[in-house]
C-alpha cells in the first residue's frame, strides 16, 4: 500500500500497478462515502481520510518520478545533443519523445533570435582557449568533412588537429577525446 519511487529505465509496469491501486482505493472510498452519507455513519470518515492520504501519496510519487524523468531528458539536450542515441530513445515513452522534440524546437527558435544570425548556446560550454584542438579518435566513425572541404578519416586511435566547433559534439558523444597538451 505504501508506494516507493522507481528510477529511469522505463517502468510502465510499476506505473500501471500504482494506477490500479489508486483505482481500487478510490472505489473503496467512493462506497464508504456513500454509506457515510446515506446511513449517517460518520465513524467511517477516518478510514476515508486514510485512503485519501494514500491516493495523494501515490499521485505525488508518480508526478515526481515523471517530472524527474523530464528533467533528465532535458539535460540530455544540453549534454549530449539534439539527436538521442537509440538505446535512450528505447526507454522513452511517446509523450516524452514528443516533449523532447518540442523542447528542441523552443530552444532552437530561442537561439535563432539571439544576435544577428542567432547563437548556438549549447556550444562552448567550457571556455575555449583556441580555435583548433587536438583530438584522439576513440572509435571508428568513418569519414568526416570539415569546412574547407577536406575529408578526414576518423579511425580508432588516430589523432587530429581540428576546429573546435566541429569537434565539440563528437567529443560529448564519446567518439573523440579532447587531448590537452
Amino acid at each position, binding site marked *: *500500500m*505504501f508506494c*516507493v*519511487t522507481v528510477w529511469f529505465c522505463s517502468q510502465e509496469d510499476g506505473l500501471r500497478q500504482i494506477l490500479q491501486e489508486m483505482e481500487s482505493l478510490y472505489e*473503496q472510498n467512493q462506497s*464508504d462515502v456513500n454509506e457515510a452519507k446515506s446511513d449517517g455513519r460518520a*465513524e*467511517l470518515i*477516518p*478510514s476515508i*481520510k*486514510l485512503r*485519501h*492520504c*494514500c491516493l*495523494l*501519496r501515490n499521485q*505525488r*510519487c508518480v*508526478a*515526481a518520478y515523471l*517530472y*524527474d524523468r523530464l*528533467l*533528465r531528458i*532535458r*539535460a*540530455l539536450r*544540453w*549534454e*549530449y545533443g539534439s539527436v538521442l542515441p537509440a*538505446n*535512450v530513445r528505447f526507454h522513452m515513452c511517446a509523450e516524452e519523445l514528443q516533449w523532447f522534440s518540442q523542447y528542441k524546437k523552443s530552444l532552437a527558435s530561442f537561439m535563432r533570435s539571439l544576435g544577428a544570425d542567432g547563437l548556438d548556446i549549447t556550444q562552448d*560550454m*567550457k*571556455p*575555449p*582557449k583556441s580555435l583548433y*584542438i587536438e583530438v584522439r579518435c576513440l572509435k571508428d566513425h568513418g569519414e568526416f568533412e570539415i569546412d574547407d572541404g577536406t575529408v578526414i578519416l576518423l579511425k580508432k586511435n588516430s589523432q587530429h588537429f581540428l576546429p*573546435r566547433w566541429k*569537434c*565539440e559534439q563528437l*567529443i*560529448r*558523444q*564519446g567518439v573523440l*577525446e*579532447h587531448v*590537452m597538451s
Partner: protein
Amino acid sequence: MDTQSYFPVQAGVGMEENFLSLDDILLSHERLPVRTECTFPRLGYLEKSSDAHDIAEGSKMELPLWLSKGLYERKRRVLSVELPKVYREGWRTVFNADPNVVDLHKMGPYYYSLGSQMLHFDSPENPDIAGTLLQTFIGRFRRTMDSSQNAYNEDTSALVERLDSLEKGLFRSGQSGLNGFQSWEKGQATQITASSLVLNYRKRKINDLQP
C-alpha cells in the same frame, strides 16, 4: 568542473516539503511511532499483528511521516504522534553537550529534516526541539565545511560516514567547488568532456562483458 545540466528538485527548507522533491519523498517515508485516538473501520488488515477487521482506538502503530502528517489534526481526535528517541530530552542533552561526537547517520539519516517535520505535531517540547536542531547544526557546520574544503583527491568515507543527509549534501557542494577550483588551476577547465550519459553507458557495457 563538470557542466551541470540536470537540476533535480531540491528538498524543502525547514518545515516545508517540496512536492516534487525526491529527497523529500524519501524523507517522508520515515516511520514514526503513533497512537490512534479513534477507530479506523475496515482497515484492520494494515495491522499485521492482529486479525481485527478494524483498527481499534488506542492502537500503537508505526506510520510513515506522510500518513501521519495527512491524518494529524490539532484537536487530536485522530492520531497522537510520539517523538522518536533522538528528539527527546535524553538525546537533546547529549546534543547540547557536544554536537560533534554524535553519529548523525545512525540516528536516522534525516536528523535535521525529520526533526523539522516533527514540529508539525504540536508537541509542547517544540521550542526545545527546534533549538537543539539549530544548535547542533551550528556546532557541526564548521567541521563539515573545513573538511570538505581540504580533502582533495582522497578517500572521504571516514569524514562523511557520521554526517546526516543535509550535511552530506553540504559536503558534496564543498567538494565540487574544491574540485572545480583545482581543475581550473591545472588548466583543465577548458577540456571538453564526454557527456555523463556516454560515460555511464560505457561503464555498464564493460560490466556486462565481464564474467
